[in-house]
Each structure stands twice: as structure tokens, then as C-alpha cells.
């Protein structure tokens, strides 16, 4: 793959690297630099494809949206991939959308190496995203308390008084 120019400022690559990527760090970076796909995080479980399309469509022509699903329940679990027809439109989206609101939530956008079958599922033990297992806050749009805390609360309340 040819060397790509590193985008500057808000459109540059973040520190995050997907640990499940098949290939070495260099290959991963080259793919990220050539990609037209974004990972979108911190979505509400209730945000629809249409809503995502409306916001990201304002940055350019969206090719497809892949909703992130709970591995067990097959329902949205708070992330998605947005693929553009061109790299430059994806760059516009990162520059102007990252850190703004969708469905009243501040969302995060990051470069992604491109969607592959299987990646639409949450990687947490219980089916959703890993971060929703360890969270300690109450987030109504993401299923309430984090899974571990929720279990603990349930166990405590099960104890007869």
C-alpha cells in the first residue's frame, strides 16, 4: 500500500488502536490512513440509523451505516460504523462532528480500518460493549447502570430484609 499523507489537527489518527486487528501496527496504521470508514461511539441505544444518516450526511455522501449490536440480544448497543464514498468526506465528518451532539449525547468519532463481518457485535462478556460492563454511572440511554454494578445492585436487593 502506498504511503499516505498524515491528516492534520482534528482529523489526525487518535491514540486508540483496535486490539483485534489482524495484522501488524504498521499495516493497521496504513489502513487507517487510507480508510473512508469511521467508528462512532457513545451513541444512545435508541438512536436509529436514520438519525445517524442525517447528521453524518451533512459532511458528505454516506455509503452505508453498520449499527453495532448486542451479541446476544441483537439490539443496538451504542456504537456504529459510518462508511463514506470518499476519504475527504470522512475527514470532514471527523473535523466537524467529533465531540458534538446526536440525540442529546456527545458522540465520539474515530478512524476505522473498515467494516468486516462480525465487527458489528459488542465485545463485552454479556453481549454489549466492554465499557458498559464496568461503568459506574447511571446512563438511561445506555441501559442504566453498568452491567457489573447492575448485577451487584440486583443481588443486594434480592437479599430479604
Amino acid at each position: 500500500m502506498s504511503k499516505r499523507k498524515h491528516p492534520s489537527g482534528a482529523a489526525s489518527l487518535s491514540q486508540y488502536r483496535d486490539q483485534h486487528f489482524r495484522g501488524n501496527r504498521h499495516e493497521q496504521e496504513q489502513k487507517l490512513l487510507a480508510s473512508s470508514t469511521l467508528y462512532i461511539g457513545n451513541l444512545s441505544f435508541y438512536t436509529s440509523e436514520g438519525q445517524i444518516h442525517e447528521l453524518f450526511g451533512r459532511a458528505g455522501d454516506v455509503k452505508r451505516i453498520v449499527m453495532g449490536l448486542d451479541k446476544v440480544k441483537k439490539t443496538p448497543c451504542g456504537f456504529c460504523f459510518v462508511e463514506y464514498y470518499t476519504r475527504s468526506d470522512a475527514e470532514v465528518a471527523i473535523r466537524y462532528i467529533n465531540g458534538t451532539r446526536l440525540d442529546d449525547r456527545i458522540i465520539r468519532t474515530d478512524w476505522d480500518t473498515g467494516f468486516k463481518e462480525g465487527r458489528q457485535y459488542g465485545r463485552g462478556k454479556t453481549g454489549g460493549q466492554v465499557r458498559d460492563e464496568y461503568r459506574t454511572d447511571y446512563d438511561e440511554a445506555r441501559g442504566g447502570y453498568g452491567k457489573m454494578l447492575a448485577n451487584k445492585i440486583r443481588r443486594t436487593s434480592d437479599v430479604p430484609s
Partner: protein
Amino acid sequence: MDRRRRRTDSMSDDEDDDRGRKRRRIATDGGVDIEDRLESLITRVGEKSTSSLESNLEGLAGVLEADIPNYKHKIMKILCECVVKLPEKLTVYTTLVGLLNAKNYNCGGEFVEMLVRNLKEALKTGEFENARMMVRFLSDLVNCHVLVAASLIQMYDSFVEVTLEDNIPQVRSDIYVYLVLSSLPWVGRELYEKKEKELDAVLSTIDNYLSKRQKIHLPALKAWSNDGPHPQEEYLDCLWAQIKNLRNSKWIEKQLIRPYLAFDSVLCDALQHTLPQIIPPSHNKSMTYPLPRVVFRLFDYTDVPQGTVLPGSHAIERYLIEEQLNRIIHTNNLERKECAAALLGYPAKNKIPLNYMIVEVMFGQLFELPRSPYIDLFYGATFIELCKLQPTSMPEVLAQASEMLFERIETMHSICIERFVMWFSYHLSNFQYRWSWDDWAECVEMDPNAPKSKFVREVLLKCLRFSYHQRVSESVPDSFAPLLPPEPNPVYRYEQEGAGSLPGTTHAHKLISSIKSKCTPDEAAILLKDLPNQYPNGQENENPAFNPLKIDVFFATLLHLGSKSISHSFAALAKFHPNLKSLAEFDDGKVCLLKVLYETWKNNQQMMVVLVDKLLRTEVVDCSSVANWLFSFEMQHDFTSFYVWEIMHSTIKKMSRHVDQLQHEVDEAHDKQEAVKRKEADGLDLGDEDVPSDEAIERMEEKLEAATSAQKNLFLVIFQRFMIVLTEHLARCESASVDYNTPWFKWVIERLQQVFLVHHELVYRYVSTLELLLFTSDIDIHILEVFQQFCALRS
């Protein structure tokens, strides 16, 4: 000698090739390249610093003086780059050049020489914005005793003489006048003191020119059609009025920082240079000049809080501040956070209402016609950052501005109303949809085509796309119910009450169960084979080219089954793509298919937009069938809805991208072939390079030609259909003797204007065909005017 060995011991003393020398220099400098250090020193001077600007400049001039013997060329080049890239620090750099010239006369001369060379090049290649910065810089060099005032006047003379040339487009003389006018705030006073008579002569030539100038283009570029409360002036007229005011106040302005004043004693002893003659390159047809503009005015002094003074619209300070804010946006448009911070950090010398000026400049850009300088989203995102940085004051100013825009919406251009809707809905979506809707309750009672009512409806439609129906309806007062969009659900006639009596119902139900049990496209086609050639209501269809009932049963059922989400719909379209292709083989079938799409998704505009895009990209329908559908009878009652135009413009854009792509491929193939021919001629080894054959290129060119003619045809279809609906309306009004100028007429005529403006480069390619075939002198003047205004943009 072995290269590798040489490199490994490049630090040894017997090393004397270029690479070795460079390495040694870097090494002795402690690893820092001197050239990089010079660049950093020069580009950073004038930024916030603990010591005064004057002492920084003095220090830097001293450093540069010492480096000039070795790095003269590099220093000159960096300075020339600062002229065009950092114009907000123009006077800082003119002072620096002045100080250098005072220390080293030759160095000043060489800098001027280089800048003049760059200026001539910029004028030749049409980089007029860079040229303007260079002209301004040269002008300010008179203040710094680097240039003789008389020689600057000579340059101005040769620029304003362009206004006397024959057979040139007005945009050419405009830009040369603009180059002079926009430099005068810097050097006016000096010229007035030293060369008053000559300056007056230049000004009177300009005055003469401006009073005779054509302004046919003006209505096409104004955000508001009327001039109340604030006139929306042509950019040269406005600047001229500001310059005349400046002249009346003896050329004294209060906005510019002039660091050279502190060095007067040093500078006045310096020897001055004479500018060489700079003759504007003569006009040629391939040259594109900047389009004229209109100055956007939203606020005046009564709108801003007490204690600050908004300079009047004809005060030169207004121009100077606005230009600086525009430059800040230009420099920072890729980084919204930096942009917001830089705008708010504008070093206001006087007490100006900065937030108001920022908001006016940002809206001025957003509403600029034909197109905003940057994508809509940039303005929305930057406004959000501005609100974050100044949470107590910025939201208030933005709300006040929105209120004013809404109040003046009746005369606002449709294109601007559309951008206003886009921004406002986006902004609301980031601020919990909170707005004082009650203030706008009057629109509930209005004609749905009245601009205020239309605006609110369209904003709510966009909010619906960003959120969901319940959220939108809960955000507005109950009285707004009539303005709310319907719930965005699909309509499927074959499962509605009374469907039993429809001719297609049995087939539709069979099709549903087959598709659900994963039938193949062929099996689905066989299922519909025996449907008669009728309309869904049972009426016979005489046209054998398409079967409306078959299209309705198949496509409506497919859309119904995929209606859960955009992805489900896409999957359904992809699987049954061959069926759709064959059902809509001819034009009538394509339009029929689009009508079925409308019947299904008329309550969900986003779905329509997204699915038309998909049908176009998968070549089930083509661009002209989309245009014909949008102009069809069935779409008439939605004709002023914004989504119709969203689809229209995205269709035109797709067409033009397709043409550009093919053009690019052809150019690339030619380049490759030529490169190979050159290599052959030089007797070089060709290796196994992939050379496109003549036949391959010919095929590509045929494809390009076909696409170009499809594009031309698309514009012809659109303009012709426009002409038909508008002419019909005018005739109807005339025979009923009622005023033709209805809200509907305003929407439609401005939509026509939008096609011209938004795609102006493209439409301009076909301007002679359009004039010959469509916009002939016998058509109605209201329609013809739109065409004439468009042509006047470049005349």
C-alpha cells in the same frame, strides 16, 4: 567510490561532497537547521509575547541582518510567503522589511524585486486574492520608507487604466479597482500628504468607473431582495463609500496597528526604492476573475449593547474588522476549535461588539451567493464552539440574530432560507431543541407557502430527521400541531383496509410470502408474469413500454418489506436489482418507479432522499428521469418542499461527478500514452508498463462524450420544465387578472435561480445552447431576467 562507505564516515574531515557539508552544518548547530529556525522566528513575530512588539521587531531585524550574507534568498522567500499567508500581520512585516532596508539597502531592493515578480505571476495566473495582499503590502512599504510614493501611484494608475479597456468583462476591471481600493486604508494618508493631486486623479478615475458600472447581477447575489432595514450593497459600492468617508476624515482611521510609527527616526533616514513598472497582463478568454459579491448586513449600532460601538456600515473600520475576521476563518476553517478561539481572541483596539461582528461575518459567509466559502457544517460546528467558549454571551447574540433573520425572512432568498433551515435545525439538535417557539406562533395561521410558515415547517422536518417524532412534538407548544410533520411511517396500499378490491392485492400477498421465504429474483419475476398492463386503480395502460401495476405491486412490496431501516431497504434493493432494472427499462417505467417510491415514503422525506440516491447509483433510474419525476403532476403539491430540491441538486451533483470522473480517466490515459511515447523516442526501456491502447482511449472518450451530452440534456430538461410551470402560472394569473407574485412564484423562480447559481461553473459551459434553445428573447421577462442576471455574473 562506494556510496555506502562514504555515507558512514560522512563526519570525517576529508569529506567534501554536498551531503557532507549539510550534515556538518546541522551537527555544529546542535541539530537545529538554521533555515527552519529562521522560518519559525519570522512567522512567529507579532504573536502574543512577554516583550513589546517593537523590541521583538528590533531584535529580529538584528538577527536577520547577521544572517543575510548567508541566507538572503531564504529570508526573502519566507518574507514573501508571510505576505500572502499571514496578511493579518501585514504591518508587522512591512515594518520588518523597513528595518532591514534601513540596515541594508540592497536587501530591501531585492525583496521588492521578488515580491513584484510574485505579484506579476499571480496576476497572470489569476490568483487575485494573493495579488491583493501583495499590492497592499507594497502600498504599506511606502509608509515604511522602502518605496517611493510616486512609484506606487504609477502602479495604481496602470491598474485603474484597466477600466478604460474596451471589450473586456466587467469582472476584470472590477478586480483591478478592488486591488487599489482595498490598499488605500493603509497608505491613503501618506499619499494624501505627499501626492495629493495624483491620488485625486486615481480616485476620480475610480469614481467615474463606478458610476457607470452595470449591476444586473446584483439581485442574484443578495441575501435579501429589499434593502430594509439595512441595504445589501455591492462590494465595490460599499468599499467606495467607506473609502470616501475615510478621505473625508483626512485618511485617518482607528483600526490598524502601525508598528513602523515607533521606528520613524530610523526609517526616515532609509533610502527608498522605485517600484518597477507593473502592467496588468492583457485579458484573455481563459482567465477567470473573481465573481462580484454583496456585503451582508444584519446589525447596526442600535442592536448592540451599550458601551460598545458598532462602526457604521460606511465606516472604514467596519471593513477592516470584517476583513480580518474573514481572514481568521479562512486560516482556521479546518479546525473549528482553533477557529472559534482565534475569532474571540481578535485583538480589538477599540471597544467593538466583537460577538456581534463575528456572528454577522459568519452568517455573511453562510449566506454568501452563489455558494458559501465552506461547507454548511463548518459554520454550525464553529457556532457551537463559540457558544461553548462564551456560554454567557454568545448564545444570546445568536438567538437575537436568529430572531432577526426570521423577522426578515419574507424577502430572504430561498437559497438562504434553505441554509438558515439547515443551520438552525442543526443548532437546535445540539441544544436540546430549546427555543422560544411561542414567539413564532403567528405562523400557525399562515399560508403554508408563506416564508415564515415554511421555515418553521422545514425546521421541524429537519429536527424530525435528527431525532424522532415524539421528541419534536414535545419540544414545541401544542398550538404548533398543524405545523408538525406526520409520523414518518411507510404506506403500503395492499395491506390497507379495502385492499381486497385492488387488482394487485393477491399478487402482492403471494409476493410477500415468497420473498419472506427467500425466493430468487427470477422466481419473484415469474410470480408477477400474468399481471395485466394496468394502473393500480384498474385503468388500462396503452403504453407497452412499462407495466404500472407490475411496478407498483413489486416495488411497493419490496419497499414495504425493507421498511424497517435504511439498511434493510438497501438489502432489498440489492437482492432484487435485476427485477427493478427490467421493470424500469425505459424512461416511463423509471418515472413510474419513482412515483411508487413517493407513494410509499411520502411521509418520510429522508427515506425518499436516501433511496433515490441509491436507485441512481445502482442505475435503476437515471438523472433525467429523476428530474422529470420531480416536475411531474403527482409531485406538484410538494414542489416547494425543500426535500424535492435536495433530491434535484444531489442528482445534478452526481451527474457532474460522473462526468468529472470520466474526464479524469481520459486525461490520465492520454498522459500515460504520451509519457510512453516520450520514453520510446528517447530510446528508453519500456519494461512491462500498462499502456492504454488507442482503442481503449477511444472507448473512454466515447463514454465521456455520452456522459457530457447526458449532463447537457439534464440541464435542458430541468430548465425547460421550469419554463413550463412558470409560464403556466403567469398565464393563469394574467387571465384571472390576479397578481402573479405569489409565495409559490417566489419559491419557484428562486429555485430556478438556485440551479444557475449553485452549479454556475457547469451551467456556464452550456450557456450558448441555453440562450439559443430556451432563454430566447420572446419568453416572459421574469424568467429571462434570471438568465440575464446569471450571465451578468461573468460579464
